[in-house]
């Protein structure tokens, strides 16, 4: 976190700079089947963030040394387009994107029924086209939908969302200014039906009480986002019937 506590991010009336309340999400839109070459795909806009995800496979895992005899591996890449950020970023993977790819893969492996596809690989390509804080949550949430769109069997969907702390107040879903000048960020990945966690990161400074409140906000938001995921999937497959 920037951790510079000297920027005012909450107005006198208790609203945040963009008018949201502490436990309010930015606007979210989810679309399914947007990339024709992929087996499954999803486009998610979340505030100003735009993520598109393509899923390929299951296919034979190669090189062979990555094969697991008892399950599929998820080959996940989180990538930011060069024009997705305020200053252009060099194309290619960096340490940040590799770490996000790793924890995303592990979160998704926790919900996909990987035991059904031994020795195979499922490729998940997460592309961030516009980035305004919270892209990893956006990518994970969209990836779960794209996997469902590809017909990959899963135990549950997965919703990722973050709460944080700004001006010593716990709030939900930090936008770019809040992320730059905030004091903590707690992104999680929640299975909406069991409320179990498949993903967890955090950095900054939270007391145990603040941590508990942030987790509460995340749980509530996950339920909301889950509804949008289900609707998006339904509207693709029942589109013709409405």
């Amino acid at each position: 976190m920037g951790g510079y506590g000297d920027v005012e991010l909450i107005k006198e009336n208790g609203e945040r700079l963009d008018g949201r309340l502490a436990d309010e999400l930015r606007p979210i839109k989810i679309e399914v089947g947007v990339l024709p070459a992929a087996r499954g795909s999803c486009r998610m806009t979340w505030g100003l963030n735009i993520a598109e995800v393509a899923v390929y496979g299951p296919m034979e895992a190669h090189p062979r040394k990555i094969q697991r005899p008892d399950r599929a591996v998820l080959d996940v890449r989180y990538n930011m387009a060069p024009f997705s950020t305020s200053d252009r970023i060099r194309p290619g993977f960096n340490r940040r994107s590799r770490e996000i790819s790793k924890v995303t893969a592990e979160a998704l492996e926790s919900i996909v029924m990987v035991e059904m596809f031994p020795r195979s690989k499922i490729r998940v390509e997460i592309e961030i086209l516009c980035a305004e804080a919270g892209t990893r949550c956006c990518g994970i949430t969209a990836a779960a939908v794209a996997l469902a769109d590809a017909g990959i069997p899963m135990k549950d969907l997965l919703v990722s969302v973050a709460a944080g702390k700004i001006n010593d107040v716990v709030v939900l879903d930090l936008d770019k200014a809040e992320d730059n000048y905030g004091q903590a960020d707690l992104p999680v990945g929640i299975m909406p039906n069991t409320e179990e966690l498949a993903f967890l990161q955090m950095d900054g400074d939270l007391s145990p009480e603040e941590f508990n409140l942030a987790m509460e906000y995340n749980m509530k938001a996950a339920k909301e986002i889950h509804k949008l995921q289900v609707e998006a999937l339904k509207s693709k497959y029942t589109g013709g019937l409405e």
Partner: protein
Amino acid sequence: MVEIVPRLLRDQLKKLAENDSRIDGRNRFERREINLETNILTNAEGSSKVSWGGTVVYAGVKFSLREPYSDRPADGSLMTSAELRPVAHLRYEPGPPSPESIELGRVVDRGIRESGCIELSSLCVVPGESVWNVNLDIHVMSDDGNIFDACALAGIAALRTATVPAEKHDVGEDHPLPVSKTPIMCSYKKVGGRFVYDPNEQEELGGDERIHITLGDDGHVHSLQKGLKGTFSTAEFAEIFDNASTQAAELRNLIEEKVN
């Protein structure tokens, strides 16, 4: 991955060609449907999205200031890049850019650069001190065939809608990037023994050599490239070169409609 040459597909394409037909029912020089959107990405200073059949491409423009080179003190620069990335197709692998990817990037770049659509001297801020570098990044999201033409179209459309962010850099007022020309690339693929325009993915898989032609507003050619194994006669080339003029005019109109 071992790419088994799809013998059956080749035979099928050959038979279709003999009946002057194509696998998706198009005529030899018929284009698939195109949807062009512009200025759709908040953080880019110019952007476009092209859906061309099932092919999807984004382009984004970013500006930065730099010192000019000493031998061209009043010239800015344009860097165009396009890559084959794993998101776009089952067969693209992560890793260092393949020769196919490098060829895509360089051919798309040459078509735009050699047309002279951006006067490099128009990118000067203070001669000898400060010029604009323009980064045009083209991001292929879904490859359903003919990504060369989709990338070229997305690229010039993004440039045509770009705003020079002078205020953010404290060097004057924001203004549109001056783009004086609209180069258009037209690609042909030998399928079943004869060249067709705008090959789809199956035609790319089961066909032979490819020819990419970039034409300027005045009908002059700015860039050519023959790719893949195969040979062709000057008569074959003359036919597609002629067709490219027609295609380029139509696509140029499409851009004019969307951009102005």
